[in-house]
Structures are given as C-alpha cells and as structure tokens.
C-alpha cells in the first residue's frame, strides 16, 4: 500500500518534470514545475518529515513558482509556441545536465533516507540527533525542535552557518535590488 503510494508520487513527479522541459508554453512549464514541487513534498511526507513537506510547499510552490512566473513575464516571447527547444548549445547543455545528474545520483545513492515513520532507532542514529530527543520512547520525532536544536545550539557548530544563511539571503536581496533598480537608460 505505502509503496504503491510512493510509486504514484514518483510517477507524478517524473511526469510533471518531463512536462516542464518539453512543454513549449512557458506558463504551462511553470505550472508543471509547481506540480513537481508538490509531488516532492509528498515524498517528504511519505518519509514522515512533515515540517520539511510543509516548507517545501510553502517555499517552492508558494514562493519560487510565483518568482518563476514573474520571471516568465519578463521575457518577451511568452506565448510564442514556435520557439525551438534546441539550439546550437545543445551538446554543451547535454554534457552539463549529465554531469549534474551524475553528481545527484552519487549523492542519492550514498545517503540513507531516514524515515520518520519507523521506530525511533533510525531517527536516533541520525547525526544531528545527539542534541535532543524529547521522548525516546515515542515513535515519532519532533523534527521541528530537532531542527532548531541542531541549528541554534552552539555545541552543534551550525550556529555560524546559520548566521551565514542570513548573510547569503541579504546578498541575494541586495543583488536583486541592484539589478532591478539599475536604470538602463
């Protein structure tokens, strides 16, 4: 039953991901992308990490898709269905895509996916879990507190990285402002 669910989800994700790259109408692409993201959040949920799933929906569906649609509106030939999918850089892009895919496969293959559905042993053995495990007997890990502890407790050593995220966001913001505000004329 649960495995069927996974295959359905995977099917949806792959199908909509294929749509993203094949459909010529850019707006439809964006919708398909939202669908993909939604499917991925389903995978997170399937693994039991509900916070991650919610964040996936919140950021990727609610925010990034909107960003992409607004980005689409900046292009000129929005409704041009005759645009060619291929151009003379197809080879380079194919190589690049293959490389990215290889890296992803390496990463995916090496990681052991932790499901939060299962008894706590799996969760306890997770690397960040030494900080806090509210109730060891509980079959469910409060991942939100887990995440917060992992990030913010100084002894975990992620505090600086956490602050750095903020700097990263700041730089993105400043960059956006500079790019958008520059008067071209």
């Amino acid at each position, binding site marked *: 039953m649960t495995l069927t669910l996974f295959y359905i989800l995977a099917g949806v994700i792959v199908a909509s991901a294929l749509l993203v790259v094949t459909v010529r109408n850019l707006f439809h692409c964006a919708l398909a992308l939202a669908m993909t993201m939604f499917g991925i959040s389903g995978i997170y949920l399937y693994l039991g990490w509900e*916070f991650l799933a919610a964040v996936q929906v919140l*950021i990727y569906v609610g925010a990034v898709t909107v960003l992409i649609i607004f980005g689409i509106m900046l292009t000129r030939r929005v409704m041009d269905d005759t645009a060619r999918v291929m151009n003379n850089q197809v080879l380079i892009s194919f190589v690049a895509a293959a490389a990215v895919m290889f890296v992803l496969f390496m990463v995916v293959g090496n990681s052991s996916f932790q499901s939060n559905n299962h008894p706590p042993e799996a969760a306890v053995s997770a690397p960040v879990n030494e900080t806090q495990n509210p109730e060891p007997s509980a079959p469910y890990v409060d991942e939100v507190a887990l995440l*917060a502890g992992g990030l*913010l407790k100084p002894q975990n050593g992620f*505090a600086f990285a956490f602050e750095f995220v*903020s700097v990263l*966001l700041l730089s993105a913001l400043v960059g956006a402002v500079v790019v958008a505000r520059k008067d071209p004329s």
Partner: protein
Amino acid sequence: MLEQYGYVLVFLLAGIFFILGAFITGWVLSPNGLLGVKYKYKKEIMVDTYECGVETYGTSWIRFNVSFYLYALLFVIFDIETVFLYPWAVSFKQLGMNGFLEMIVFIAILLVGLAYAWKKEALKWE
C-alpha cells in the same frame, strides 16, 4: 501520526471531485450545455475578450515590470527567513537567551536588507 495526512490526501481528491461535479452539473444545466439549446445568435462577439465593449487592442500577454519580480524575490527571501523562525520559535524556551540572541542577529541582518531595499526605493511599486 502520519495517517492523519490520509485526510489531507482525501480532502485534496474530494475537493477536486466536488468541483468537477459542480462543473458537470453546470454543464448539464447550462443553456449551452447538455440540456441546452443551440445558439441562435452571433457567438463570436459574446466569446470575445471583455474590454468594456470595445475590441481589445494589441495582445494581452504583455511583458511585465521588473518590480513584480523584485517583490517575488523579496518574498522568497523573507519566506525562507520565516521558515527558519518557526523551528526557533517552537524551541524558543529550550534554547533560551542564547538562541534568542542568535536569532536577533539573524533577523537584524535581514532587516538591514529590508532597510536597504526601502532606502533604494525598491519597495516602490510601479
């Protein structure tokens, strides 16, 4: 715990089916649907795009201003911030003053960004 999300899934599917059901009902009952009559009047004008009774000039799918994009980008950034805020808020009492100070720094850096955007009038709508 996770079986709770079965409800979510069922609600999602049920919602879609309800709407489709409503559409089908509408299609059955509407004058141009299953039980309706054939058109006796000019259809082209009726199904044209509405623009106050005047023919549309030019295309509607126009290129938009970059400020929309900027707002979306700002939103993504602040959305990520809130995503970090939530776990922090949940374990706020456990983390104590230490975590609070860390978060203040985090927010402050982002507020600098907001102030910068404000100052540069990037928040000005066009």
